[in-house]
């Protein structure tokens, strides 16, 4: 079984994983877990299911690594899975909301350790921003997350979402317009051009 270390390339890590080397897959996980976690959280918002969805992404990656042809970067492959799993989770949420209309929609909030006024204001602003992002349709939200939050280029975003370049631009435009409109409202965080 081939040995891997921090300097191993993606191809070496994939080949070693396919030979059953757990350490190689662990390095792949460590390399991409931050991006995957941020992408999933961007799509879903804070919640206890984030952890499960991130795990599902890597379990799926482990099972389908043999189908990776190397035509795109492994990162593109992983982030596409993260977006697809997030969309699955959003649909699951919708289904549960339909089945259990009595369940409340309030976002999951762990108890705050420091409840100072400034911190509370800041959290309120970020919560308002989250509500604005949640109002975007799934397609626009995915583009906004990848393009603005993860800072992928338009070409990379098109490749990850497997949609034409022009569609990325139009969804970005519509998503940004909607965010601007929401955050410009007097009660919103955009009253001074941003949440800061």
């Amino acid at each position, binding site marked *: 079984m081939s040995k891997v270390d921090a300097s191993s390339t993606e191809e070496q890590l994939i080949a070693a994983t396919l030979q059953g080397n757990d350490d190689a897959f662990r390095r792949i996980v460590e390399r991409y877990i931050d991006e995957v976690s941020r992408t999933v959280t961007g799509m879903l918002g804070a919640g206890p299911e984030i952890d499960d969805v991130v795990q599902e992404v890597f379990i799926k990656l482990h099972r389908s690594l043999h189908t990776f042809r190397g035509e795109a970067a492994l990162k593109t492959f992983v982030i596409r899975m993260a977006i697809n799993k997030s969309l699955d989770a959003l649909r699951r949420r919708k289904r549960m909301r339909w089945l259990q209309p009595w369940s409340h929609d309030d976002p999951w909030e762990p108890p705050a350790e420091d409840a100072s006024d400034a911190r509370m204001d800041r959290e309120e602003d970020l919560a308002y921003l989250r509500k604005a992002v949640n109002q975007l349709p799934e397609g626009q939200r995915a583009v906004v997350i990848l393009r603005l939050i993860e800072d992928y280029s338009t070409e990379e975003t098109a490749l990850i979402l497997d949609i034409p370049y022009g569609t990325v631009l139009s969804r970005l435009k519509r998503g940004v317009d909607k965010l601007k409109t929401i955050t410009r409202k007097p009660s919103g965080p955009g009253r001074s051009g*941003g949440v800061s």
Partner: protein
Amino acid sequence: MIHPRENSTDTRQEDHGLSPDLVRDLRRMVVAECNRSMMSMPAERVMRAVRVSPAAQRIGFVERELVNWFRPVLALGIIVIMALAVYNFDLSRQNDQLQTPAEMVLGLQPVTVAAAYDIEFDHHD
């Protein structure tokens, strides 16, 4: 602890026209939410989950989905049964026949030897 994107200065602002402050806040929001939601040592837990046999994963998923789908059906079923029991009980109290509580709740007619041989054709005139 989830780290913000390394290259966190937005170099493509001209494409989208959103204020850099708002973009920075969006990134901050996601990192803050991520740190609140993710438990410690996520890579370790992912590796443990990957090692679990695929069959067990599949069964776990099917069980979870079945429970999720069955829960509202169960609740609705209990409500319907309770409503029927209350309706039967209420209806049974309105007639003056002596009935056991089980007969009242289940909506059963009182069956006695006398009642069985008491043939009346009054309603078929």
